[in-house]
């Protein structure tokens, strides 16, 4: 039983990170109908940027995260601008274009930080909490808390602000959005930047939990995507549930199947998406493209 809860808690803190990655996927998909295949690599850049500013520049961890988010946001603006001619035209080409950007980001990371990667010390080094015999790392709680705050902020942004409403409007009907005066390209760029900011946050938070290296993006990206699909693509609350579910599944798979956990997660994901392509909470059709 203890093992069960231990695994559950571990899974939830990773799940929170996947949820952030998934929200980044979702907000871009929601506004542009595009799956950004470079999203995982943006997460990786975020992890590197945050940990570098934290460890080498000795910035406070929170500030390092903010700087990393700004860095990835800027990268996202570049990606969106370069691929804008293909928007609403050829989705397959855009997909390949984002893969190209992913390769670029990975090699840039290797050039800047080397191929070996580095470990990041936990920024919260108080002793683990002991709850009925279950040891919970304080940092896990911090991750869950920050992820929750980020989610609430995003929801408030989408629901309470003019810009947020405009972004949703663009997603639903870009022609009608243009007619009421919304600049669709700018709205998309902002969505892309927000997605990248979330990616950086996820990367920064996961850095002390994993070993940061240039290939980090691949598996984080695809698990985040799996989470997004599981929650019904484009659905923000769904992304959170999906993220937590994938985290827990991952955690238990690691316990049960050890090294084969990725295999199990990806197979499970394939089966789920085959059976229910719209995800658990999704209503949209799969093939927006």
């Amino acid at each position, binding site marked *: 039983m203890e093992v069960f809860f231990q695994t559950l808690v571990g899974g939830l803190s990773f799940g929170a990170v996947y949820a952030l990655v998934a929200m980044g996927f979702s907000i871009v998909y929601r506004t542009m109908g595009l799956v950004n295949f470079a999203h995982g690599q943006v997460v990786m850049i975020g992890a590197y940027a945050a940990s570098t500013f934290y460890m080498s520049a000795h910035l406070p961890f929170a500030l390092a995260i903010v700087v990393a988010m700004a860095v990835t946001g800027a990268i996202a603006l570049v990606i969106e601008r370069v691929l804008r001619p293909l928007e609403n035209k050829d989705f397959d*080409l855009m*997909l390949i274009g984002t893969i190209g950007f992913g390769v670029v980001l990975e090699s840039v990371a*290797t050039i800047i930080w080397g191929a070996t990667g580095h470990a990041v010390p936990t920024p919260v080094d108080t002793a683990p909490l002991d709850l009925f015999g279950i040891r919970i790392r304080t940092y896990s709680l911090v991750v869950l808390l920050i992820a929750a705050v980020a989610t609430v902020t995003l929801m408030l942004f989408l629901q309470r602000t003019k810009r947020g409403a405009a972004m949703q409007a663009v997603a639903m009907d870009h022609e009608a959005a243009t007619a009421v005066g919304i600049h669709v390209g700018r709205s998309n760029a902002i969505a892309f930047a927000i997605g990248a900011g979330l990616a950086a946050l996820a990367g920064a938070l996961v850095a002390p939990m994993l070993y940061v290296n240039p290939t980090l993006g691949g598996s984080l990206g695809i698990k985040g995507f799996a989470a997004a699909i599981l929650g019904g693509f484009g659905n923000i609350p769904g992304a959170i549930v999906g993220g937590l579910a994938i985290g827990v599944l991952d955690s238990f798979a690691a316990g049960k199947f050890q090294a084969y956990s990725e295999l199990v997660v990806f197979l499970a994901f394939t089966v789920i998406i085959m059976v229910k392509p719209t995800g658990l909470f999704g209503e949209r059709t799969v093939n927006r493209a």
Partner: protein
Amino acid sequence: MRLRVAGVAVLAGVAWYLPYQLDLYGIHVVDIAIVFALLAIGLGLAMGIGGQINLAQVAFFGVSAYAVAILTTKAGFGFWTSAVLAVVAAALVGLFVGIPALRMQSHYLGIVTLGLALAFTNWVTNASITGGADGVSGVPVPPLFGIDLSSEYLYYYVELVVFGLALAFALFLVRTGLGRRLRAMRDDSLAAGAVGAPVPVLRMTAFVLASLYGGVAGVLYAGLIRYVAPETFSIANMFLLLAMVIIGGRQSIIGCVVGALALSLLREVLVDFAVYAQLGFGVVVVLMVVFAPTGLAGVPARVMAVVRRGRTAGERAVLRPFQSGGSAPRPGAALEISGISKHFRGLKALVDVSMSVSPGEIRGVVGPNGSGKTTLFNIVSGIYPVSAGRASVDETVVTGRRPYQISRLGIARTFQNLRLFRQMTVRENLLVALDRSSMWSVWRYVVWPVGIWRHERELRTRADELLDRFGLTDFAEAAPGSLPYGIQRRVEIARAMAGDPVLLLLDEPAAGLNGQEVGQLREIVKSIRDSGVTVVLIEHNMGLVMSLCDRVTVLASGSVIADGTPAEVAVRPEVIEAYLGDSMNTAEIAAEVEVS
């Protein structure tokens, strides 16, 4: 043609004498490049020809290479036996990976195939049978009539022969029936289904083809290196492969090969700057996608286009008049629609629609926007399932069948917004529809290619006749998108007629046509009916409907509100109300109809 033969001969000569110019390292690089070229052909077939995003190509490669290694070292099979089993294993994995393509396309398919590729990598790095991260070593040298294939020079010639055959097969495939169907599916899967191409089977075929090439590449790789380890089949290599295909030009097999060879060699040249090379490949892929989506293979065509723009062509291609066919050997088919309803999530698009069209009739279906006309066509042609009711053609129930099955029953259609296969020539557009051979006949590709070739020649003759009949001969080699709209409309009708249908559904055939073209259309439709085809047309051009149709059915808000001869229908108050919003002065109109 002669030039092409000479070119191939020169290339073969160069390939033959190449090893004499290379040192041991050089020949090794070339041997590896050929393996990548095979992989690229497979990826090009799936993505460029079939339009199926496939990010699991390295997994197919890996399955086969590992199968050879494991079967030879652990199960004691001979190399060639293992090779055959390995290719079979790769094809089976290809089938498995292809299953998701039946349910999803584009981005979703990309992520699923990528996930499965990662799952494969995860498995080989951890399983004991694959030797974990250490891989499997000690694969035997492939025996071949006493030739020592441990020499990479001699192995080169084995690869060259296999590669030559594989390339020739791919080129043959792309230019004949199966490849044409794949390309049609890539350009427009809906239209491909409507002209009889079995889309689900084709999607699986695309993956099986990719995996067969991956399998062959895996066998060659295992025989060459005689050691397999996980990093060869990493995602990084998958993306390298993707870069090869995109840079070379995914829709051209030759382009894929050129891309693969170029990038393989470039990678070796830049081996000390591997990261920068990777960065460069990424940048080039992005630039290609935005500025040159057809890759290197598209460069000649672009140059030609620029050159041609300079001088105007001497002879202008002309659209010749349509030649009406002979008399009717048969009356056409009867269409019976009974009680069809269609709901889209609560929205009632069609409510209990019934109508019957007699053999040899021209029936008009009219009604205001959003009255459900196109939905009705989509149901009869199998694109939408019905919510209730059924449609039958000559007693055969068509509802519940797939579009390609319905097409094979002799029901053809055109689309409101022209769905031509845009990246194929006009002739190829017709050939796709002319080809009624079943998918089972693909066995001939392996066993009896001559049969394929004969069938192909016969199809081409019939395509020429069809082009001639529709006056399109001058445009046979043109891309549909480059033609004036009126001609595109005619091409679409010709394509629908290629399947020799008994029932033809025309969805707004006069939209966008000028007065003269509408007149030609009227003659074409009449002649089509006279050659034994029942015609149902949706049309907003009421002049055409009134002068062409035997009977007219009026739909409004998803229900039939009137049915009768054009003169009868035009004076019905409810019809005038649906069109004009009022029913004033019907008597006057009735009087006018009498006069006209």
